[in-house]
Each structure stands twice: as structure tokens, then as C-alpha cells.
């Protein structure tokens, strides 16, 4: 379905929400039921094809987490759980309801934290290559340590085709490089210790009472198949689907397949 829509721009409009404790940059566009997209550690690419495609079926709301993109970061915030609380403020301020909540990587972690707290405004949950739980042995990191390996190795774990997606600073503006550096800093702040997880989260996932789809790229080198399976088993009724020829960011590498899965899951 999605292929024909590529290039037809469903532009997302940028605005800044003044929330009680933080200013949050949010991109919005499209028509239909609400889809709240929570980005991963690389930050939000507001011009990405998958957001345009989603905008054909949904009203897309895509905020930047505190400390990412154009969102501020108060000194007291230092966790993904803080992000979860902020996004409830976003939901309130924008009066969002019947939400399809989609989160990728640490955005998936954020979405899972939110869904363990309050699902009254959330109809369904899609966790894309989510991190946030610790299920493996004590002497092995569940997620490979991206802070202790060369950047090209990190890229090989993230992408199915790393050579296609590798960051080329020469093609970026100074502002984009600054955002990239700031995003990495905030990612470090919230994932350093405990590394990429909240030890409490796996004990809370049983509370999630909405249909849940877990999507994983088949070539994901960060979130293993076993890890994604564990996530699915911890959430009542959750289903795991795999997207071929994609790594940790299937929405970038396979936007049509990604959107297709979400559209079918949401019954759109």
C-alpha cells in the first residue's frame, strides 16, 4: 500500500510546547486517529519518509524527548522515566486520546514505562526494537555497550546497510552536528547506568492492558531476538513481528514495511 505514497509530502509542522517543567519540540501532521511517535537514541528525523507515510493514515504527533532536538533539558531530569512523565504532559496539553503509541529503542522503553503507569488515553502500543529491560545473565550486557566500541562498529549493529546510513559530517550543517552531539550526550545521560534499562520495568510490564505489537528488524545487532521475545512474553498478549532487511531502525531502512505493519495492527 505504502509504496505509491512515497514522495507525497504530508508535512509535519514544528511547534514548541511550554510544559510546566520543560519546553518540548513537537512535530505534528496528517489526519486520522492519533499516533504518538517516541523517537530513539539518534533523535527525531522529522523529514523521514515513514512519518510522511504514517501521516496519510494518522494524525502524527512526534515530540523530541527532553535534551534531544529542540527540547530543553532541566538539570533535574536524567532518566527515561522522566521522559515518560513529560510525554503524559504532552498528551494532556494536546488533549490526545485513543492513542496508538509507537516508540523506538529508548522511545520504546519510554512507551513501555508510560503504558505501565496509565493506559487511559492509549488504545494500543507498538514497541520498535525496544530497550529498557534486563533479562539476560548478570555477567553479560543485554544490549552491546555502544559507549565502549568504535562508531563504525556501532553503525554495523544499528543498520542492515551501514554504508548507506553512515553519518557524513561534511553533508550536515553546523546546527545538525550540534544537535547530533547533544542527542548523544542526552542518550548517555539516561542510559549509562544501569546500562540501557530500568531494573524495575520488567516487573511492571504485566500491568500493560492494551494490545501490544513488538517490531524488530531481523538484522538488529543491539536488540537480539531473545531479548525481543522476552519483552513480548512479559507483556500480556503481546506479539512479536520481524521486519526483514532492517536493523535497529526498521522505520528508516524499511519505511513501507514498517508503516504497513502498524496500519494493519491499528486496523487502519
Amino acid at each position, binding site marked *: 500500500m505504502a509504496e505509491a505514497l512515497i514522495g507525497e509530502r504530508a508535512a509535519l509542522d514544528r511547534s514548541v510546547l511550554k510544559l510546566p517543567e520543560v519546553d518540548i519540540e513537537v512535530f505534528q501532521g496528517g489526519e486520522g486517529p492519533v499516533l504518538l511517535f517516541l523517537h530513539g537514541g539518534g533523535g527525531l528525523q522529522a523529514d523521514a519518509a515513514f512519518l510522511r507515510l504514517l501521516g496519510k493514515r494518522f494524525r502524527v504527533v512526534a515530540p523530541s524527548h527532553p535534551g534531544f532536538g529542540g527540547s530543553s533539558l532541566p538539570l533535574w531530569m536524567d532518566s527515561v522515566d522522566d521522559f515518560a512523565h513529560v510525554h503524559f504532559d504532552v498528551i494532556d496539553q494536546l488533549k490526545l486520546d485513543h492513542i496508538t503509541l509507537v516508540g523506538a529503542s529508548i522511545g520504546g522503553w519510554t512507551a513501555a514505562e508510560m503504558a505501565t503507569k496509565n493506559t487511559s488515553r492509549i488504545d494500543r502500543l507498538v514497541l520498535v526494537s525496544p530497550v529498557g529491560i534486563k533479562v539476560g545473565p548478570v555477567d553479560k550486557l543485554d544490549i552491546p555497550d555502544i559507549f565502549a566500541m568504535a562508531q563504525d562498529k556501532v553503525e554495523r549493529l544499528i543498520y542492515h546497510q551501514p554504508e548507506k546510513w553512515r553519518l557524513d559530517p561534511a553533508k550536515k550543517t553546523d546546527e545538525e552536528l550540534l544537535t547530533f552531539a547533544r542527542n548523544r550526550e542526552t542518550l548517555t*545521560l539516561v542510559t549509562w547506568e544501569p546500562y540501557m534499562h530500568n531494573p524495575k520495568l520488567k516487573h511492571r510490564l504485566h500491568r500493560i492492558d492494551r494490545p501490544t505489537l513488538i517490531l524488530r528488524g531481523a538484522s538488529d545487532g543491539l536488540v537480539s531476538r531473545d531479548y525481543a521475545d522476552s519483552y513480548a512474553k512479559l507483556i500480556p498478549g503481546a506479539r512479536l513481528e520481524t521486519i526483514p532487511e532492517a536493523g535497529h531502525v526498521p522505520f528508516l531502512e524499511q519505511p513501507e514495511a514498517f508503516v504497513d505493519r502498524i496500519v494493519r495492527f491499528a486496523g487502519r
Partner: protein
Amino acid sequence: MRVWHFSENAYPYLPPAEEYESVRAALPNRHYDPVKGAALYDRFIDEWLIAEEEGLELMMNEHHQTPTCVDPAAPLVLAVLGRLTKRARILILGNPIANRRQPVRVAEEMALADILSHGRIEVGFVRGVPYEISPANSNPVYMNERHWEALDLIIKAWTSHDGPFSHEGRFFHHRFVNIWPRPYQQPHPPVWVATTTPNGAARVGGRGFVQATFLSGNRMTPEIFAGYRRGWREAGRGDDVPIDRLAYAAFIYTAETEEAAHAGAEKLLWHIAINKIPPHFRNPPGYASAELNAQVMRGTAREPGLPKVVSARHAIDDGIMFAGTPDQVFDQVKRFYGRVAGFGNLLMLGQSGFLDHADTVRGIKLFAREVYPRLKAAFPDTAISGVGDRAGAAAT
């Protein structure tokens, strides 16, 4: 001027650099032979004692998971020296308090070392080099904020004597702080802080602590010390900044002939040559500012790290090394003193790598006997740093 003999206590018996990815953080400790390591410690402690006999003050530091400095618990070595020495001041530079989980424990360790040495310790606090982050498992973001909260809490723990107080800060939480022993020196041991930037130095100057900078050379040191003086004056401490508030660490090797001195000096550069570190340990996200990291990606700025040095001659030209005959070393220090508008503490990196015991001791003794007296006479501790600052400011 006071001069401090500084040994990093390196373990130099390493496999070829091609065989490992990083000398810091990740080099397996199977390469450390405990018997050789113990012999090295005997030797390094002897060298500190000789330096004391020769009239120098003593300095030590701390690093983790690295052969370049096999002292991951500097307070232990501080305590050892506190008992073995009799006269020298002993500077620990320093405690990596942004990487320590309990500042109050650091306050206790320093107070105990002050008691053991009968009030001869000087307590330095350092942010720590970026490759300390992974070994400490310490979040590289907000290090500076943690550093200053910890420093203030430590000083409060040293100087509060009327029973427990509580601390509920942004990073540290203690409900019951009441350290025993309290420091020997009153109100507390002298405090040093190491910084690498003019703004960081200004903050140290504002507090009046001793500011130290390592291997920052001809190019960066003048502005760092100027930053200190600016902070000192802006905080209302007066126009005159005593030179004893400023410290500089450089490689130093003195010998009877220039050739012998340069031969020894080249061996000191092991410290830089061995420093093979991949970017992910060299510059973890959050250690440097996002602005600097953006410039590094653009290729218009260098990430934090040791200076690039190819030879002793080059190091001398850059002001990170003072080496030669006693006359040459005196002249080099004097020139650097002029360049930075005055400093009162010289931290002498006088041993590194394969510089053996005999050569190390020769360097210490010749410096202490032939250079140090002249430095003390030329740059008395009562001298003022930055005398020309105001004239210079008026001229511009």
C-alpha cells in the same frame, strides 16, 4: 617557588602496541606481573623519599585500569608516604570526586591521611581524564556539577564540628555527616583543583584554591592562568594573585650535559607515546561540551587529550618539558614563568616509562641541588602573578 616530585607509578612492561586496542580501560591485567609491580612500588617510594631528602615536596595522582599509572587508590599511597616521610608536603592531585560515589568517604580518607602525616597533606580534586569514565562507570554527563557539589560537601564535612549535618543535594545524599577524625590542619588542608580551561580556572580562582594545569604548554597555559586571575579578582579577592595559587605540571629532566638530559627526557615521553586510546574511551559523549564535539566532527577542533609530541626538543619548544643542563632548565622555567605571568608551584614529572632508578635519582638530585635554589631565589613565594594584567587590559 615550590617544586613537587611527581611520579605516575607506571608499569612499563607492556606487549607491543599493535597487540592491543587501548592502553587504558581495556588492557587485560594478565600483562601485570604482581612481583615486578611490587618491586616497582618499592622503587617509586624510594624515589619519593630521596626527593624529600633533597628538599622537594611530593606529589602523587590516581588513575584506574591502566598501566600508565598503577595507583587506583591514591589515598593508600598517600597514607604510606605520610608515615615514611618526615618533612615534605604531600600533594594528592588528585581525588577524582566526580567519579567517587561518596564524597564523605573522601573527606574521611583525607582527614585520616592528614592525621597520619601530622598535617602535611595538600588535597587536590580533579575531574579526571575522559578514559577514567568507563573504569569508574561514572556518567560523563554533569561531571562538573558533581565535582563542585562533592567538593563543597567535603569541605563542609572537614569544617563542621558540632555534630551531624545532612546533605540533600542534586547528586549526593547524606543524612548524617560527622566525620572522625577531623583534619589535622585548620580549618582544613590546602585545596587544589586541576582544570584545563580559562572558565574552569576562573571558577577555581573565585574560590581561591590552588589551580593546577597539566602539560598545557605555551599556548594554553597563559590564558588558563589569566582565567584564574580574572575569577580571583571578580570574586573580590583583591588585585594581587599570589603565585603560590598557580601550579604547572611538566616533564622535567636535568643532567650534566645537554645530550644526557635529552636522552633522559626522551624516556619521559613514554607517557605520551604509550597513550594509545580509541575515540570511544578518549572522548565519551558528555565529557566535552556538545559545542566542542560538533566542532570535532566538523574537524575544526581537537578532542580533549594529551598534546601531540614527537621529541624532547619539540616538547621543550612547546613548553610541556623543561630539560637540559641546570642552566638550561632554569632558563626554560624562567621563560615559561614570564610567558604565563608568574606561577609558584612546579609539578615535576620526573619519572616515567623506562627511565630507570639511577637516572631518575640523578635527575632529581641535580635539579634539587642546582636548579631549585635558583628558582626559589628568583621567584619567591611572596611574588604576585599577573602584575601586567591591568596594564595589558588598559592597553587593549
